């Protein structure tokens, strides 16, 4: 594990474990994960499929609660937040890009991106920001297309535009490059690096693509739920 001491800690992961009940007893998906993720860097969560990356990401995103340990964001244990506070945290300070397609099918690309601004309660000048974000992901010309009319890669890029539109402090991206070709994947990674650089966003992104591993300022590697 590498660590940079130059800025303050955005996310602190302390002894986090996650156990799922199964038919035959229980399954330990995560075991004693520890990390301090500083503000404004791109962190890569790597590991094979089934190693617990998504579970950890869900816990960081307050979508799931750890069975052991806790996650602190800005020094606050997010497991102790009320449901509503968690919602607000996700709504205003986080952006998500999911492995599966995560657009709302009834909204077009533009509306999907704009919706995250609505959710965050941002008023006025939304149009410029939406268009800016879509251009940033290279979809400036397909803004009015419905999700069903776009390819998987295009949808994924809309999801990225949506995740960053409301200027969140943290972006959690689960395999954002899985559906993209290598050129596009490199482009997305470059975009993330640029975001970290320009907007001081903390990005955690899972991937199993070895080629992208170098892009991160920090790498957490998981294997069978354990930190390597």
């Amino acid at each position, binding site marked *: 594990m590498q660590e940079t001491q130059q800025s303050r800690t955005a996310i602190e992961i302390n002894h986090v474990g996650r156990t799922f009940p199964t038919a035959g007893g229980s399954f330990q998906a995560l075991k004693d994960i520890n990390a301090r993720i500083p503000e404004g860097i791109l962190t890569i969560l790597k590991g094979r499929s089934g190693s617990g990356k998504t579970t950890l990401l869900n816990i960081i995103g307050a*979508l799931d609660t750890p069975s052991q340990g806790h996650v602190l964001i800005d020094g606050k244990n997010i497991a102790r937040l009320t449901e509503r506070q968690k919602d607000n945290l996700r709504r205003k300070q986080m952006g998500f890009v*999911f492995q*599966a397609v995560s657009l709302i099918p009834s909204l077009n690309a533009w*509306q999907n991106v704009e919706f995250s601004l*609505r959710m965050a309660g941002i008023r006025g000048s939304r149009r410029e920001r939406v268009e800016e974000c879509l251009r940033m992901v290279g979809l400036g010309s397909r803004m009015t297309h419905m999700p*069903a009319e776009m390819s998987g890669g295009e949808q994924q890029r809309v999801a990225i535009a949506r995740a960053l539109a409301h200027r969140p402090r943290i972006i959690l991206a689960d395999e954002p490059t899985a559906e993209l070709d290598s050129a596009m994947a490199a482009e997305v990674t470059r975009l993330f690096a640029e975001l970290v650089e320009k907007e001081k966003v903390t990005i955690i992104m899972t991937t199993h693509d070895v080629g992208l591993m170098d892009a991160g300022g920090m790498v957490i590697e998981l294997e069978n739920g354990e930190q390597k």
Partner: protein
Amino acid sequence: MFKMMLQKLLSKKWMSVCLLTGILLLAATAVSFPMYRSTAFDRMLYDEFREHLSTEGEWPAVNSFIIVSKKDAGGKAISRMEGLMEELCGMLGVTEKETVYYYSLAKADARSLMNRKDVGTLSLSLGFLSGLEEHAGMLAGEMYSEEGIADDGCLEAVISQSCMVSSKLLIGEIIEFSGLKDPEGKPVRARITGVFQEGREKDFYWRRTPEELSQDILVSETVFRKYFTGDRAGGYTITCCYESLFEYEDLEAGQVKRLKETTEWLTGESPYRHTISEPVYAKILDTYTRKQARIDAALFLLQIPVLVLLGAFLFMISGQMYDMERNDISVMKSRGASGGQVFALYLYQNCFLTVLGTLAGVWLGRIFAGGLGSARSFLEFDFQGSLALPGGDVVLSWETILYTAAAMAGCILIMTLPAGKHSRLTIVNLKQKKAQRKHSWWEICCLDLICLAVALYGYYTCTKNQGAVAESVLKGENMDPLQYVSSSLFIVGLGLFALRLQPLIIKAIFALGRRFWGPASYISFMENGKNGRKQQFIMLLLMMAISLGMFHAVAARTILQNALKNADYLAGADYIVKEVWEDNSSQGGKGGDPVEFRYYEPDYEKYDRLESAMACTKVIYDTKAYVDTGGNSRQDVTLMGIHTRQFGEITRMPEGLMEKHYHEYLNELALNPDGILVSADFRDILGYKKGDTITYCNFQGNQARGKILDFVSYWPGYVFSSMELNPDGSVSHISRPLVIAPIGTLSSRWGTVPYEVWISAREDADADEFYRWIKDEQVRPMRYVDRSADLEAVIRDPLLQGTNGILTMGFLVILLLCGVGYLIYWILSIRSREMIFGILRAGGMHKGEIFHILINEQIFCGGFSVAAGILIGKLSCDMFVPILQTAYVAANQILPLQLITRQQDLIRLYGVTGAVLALCLCILFGLVQRLNVAKALKLGEE
């Protein structure tokens, strides 16, 4: 394949249960109709015969033949007729009650061997009446013996009392017919052994009463046959009468066709047509068939909307099922299954479900039929007095089997047709399909506008011809199907039109509040814009359920209540008894002096002993009175003499029929003993004014004068004008003017004249008490009215009862369907959108906001449908209930028709709908509450 299908069904058990429910209800509804019909028609047939029996006092189910077997003809005609008699009931398909043979020889001169001075030459017919020994009682003497011949060779014979009186014969007297010869060639001698009369009990054997047999001397059948028929028939002229009585009690509706056709053949084309007299039951069957055709058409048409709705429900659920299995289908296809194989799998599954559902449906149909038969009013059943108890004597007829088969075919067709479309689906065009967005087919072909146009055309024609409808009912003409169907078309048309408007309305609301909408509202507006079309079906179902439910409730109440009110009015009072009045006309004056004619008033005290009576009053009711209209002309009128105060207390009339309450007219009459009230015809047709004085006379010609106080257009129990069917099939309107005078004035002028007694019953009166009283007091009524029995007859009328039953059943089925359909639709809709909710929750949307979305959706879908349904329902009730109502108007409808709405029914309807919507919301809340965001997102991965 069976295993695969079973697995498929089990994996979607809720959908399968829904499909089964739909099939069950469809089969039950379809099957209950013929089941109810056959039992109701059996009863109606029985009632028609019974009615004839009680009004005419004669056995209605009888065929009478008469032939005269001439001398020299050798008795061929007799043997042919006797052959016919043996086969007749079999030919008609009925059960024989009794066949009475009455043969009599032409009148022959006879002489008494007693040599009495007071008896000259007699002219008598010798004959026999089959079965006499079993049916006759003996007034004196004995019946002829079994052998029929005494030891001395005399035939034993009996005579009626009238014959004894007119021919002055004595018991024991021997009569010799010189013209008649016994087998040995000697003149026939008959000894009178007794005088017969009718038995004590009412016996329909007596087609000819003993009084009518005043010239007949009857011997035993065997003897008569031996002496005068067979080889010997050639020697005599014999009049042969055949009365073939059959049982009508166990006559079933299914036998009518054969009975009717055979009877028509007998009287029309058969070689016997000149020997048969037109049987009375032919008319009864005619009336019955006319009524049956009307009821058939009416009830069938009433069922259509419910059946269509059920079909639509099946279509929707199976469509949903195909939608859910789209992926499976496209995977199967991609793996090489042919379209035919996919189609076969669905066909197989649908057949399986249909057979299962129909088997249970037939059983449920019996309960439905029982329900129809015990319907007393809308949403009201009385299984006690039920026509057919559930699972009771409702039988499985061929007709039922036919309906079952039709229902099955319909179910399979409805459910399988969409499979054809889906079986052509591959994974490629599935993806393409998802991207497509288009108008619904009905929007493109303007189905809503077409339905509305047809409905409004129906409305226009039926409203225009409203007057003619009553005439066509009387004539027994078939009803215009538009009369029944246009209301349903109107509801469907307006419903579809509302669906066309709904997206526009939602868009307008969205545009109006664009600035205020939060994320939740935004999402719900956008979802509605995108997926609104998927909801159209369930919305239509909900709208139709509410508007059709309202329509059914109002129509059922209106039809029955108007009929009941009319019957209540027509009865006049709870009981009316008109007794037979004896007079002194038959006594003649002593010594030929003319005696003043007078009536013997029957004992009035006995009315005090009628315990169920609260009060009674005398009413002179003279239908043969007339008014002198000047010159030599007279106007026939009905004269009513009443005791004003008592009459007002005993009778009742609905409010608002005339300018003033009828009690005010009574008060006016009470103050003016010389005044009269007359019907409005006197003013409108005869040109009289208030204050004119007219001379009126009763049926005996007794005169009185009265000053017209006022004109009335309604009066308790009185029919002012009626329609009658002429023999040529045309209808004539008959006006029946009325004169009402105080009874005191009439009796002071004319003395005692026959009157009726009008009685009001106590609230808790026992209905049978009245009949016990009639029997105990030996009242001889010429006419009586029992209001409660009249009202009961209205309720039990097959047309009204069937209508009520079908409307109620339809209402219940619609409610059930609508509830189940709505729940299923929304549960599936939420399930299919779990991923979206997951995305929204992951994006930080609060649960409360998710609920907000759900509530918005319910308002756009459910709320809109309910509101539209209520509006459409109200409109269609106001427009179409009066039209439907006219199909039920009896020829004797006097009171103006009113639209009757029971708030209670509507509250029930709204209550159930509200409960369904609330339950739906609760379930949806529960589903969202349990939603696991991480899991929901996983779903999206597949």
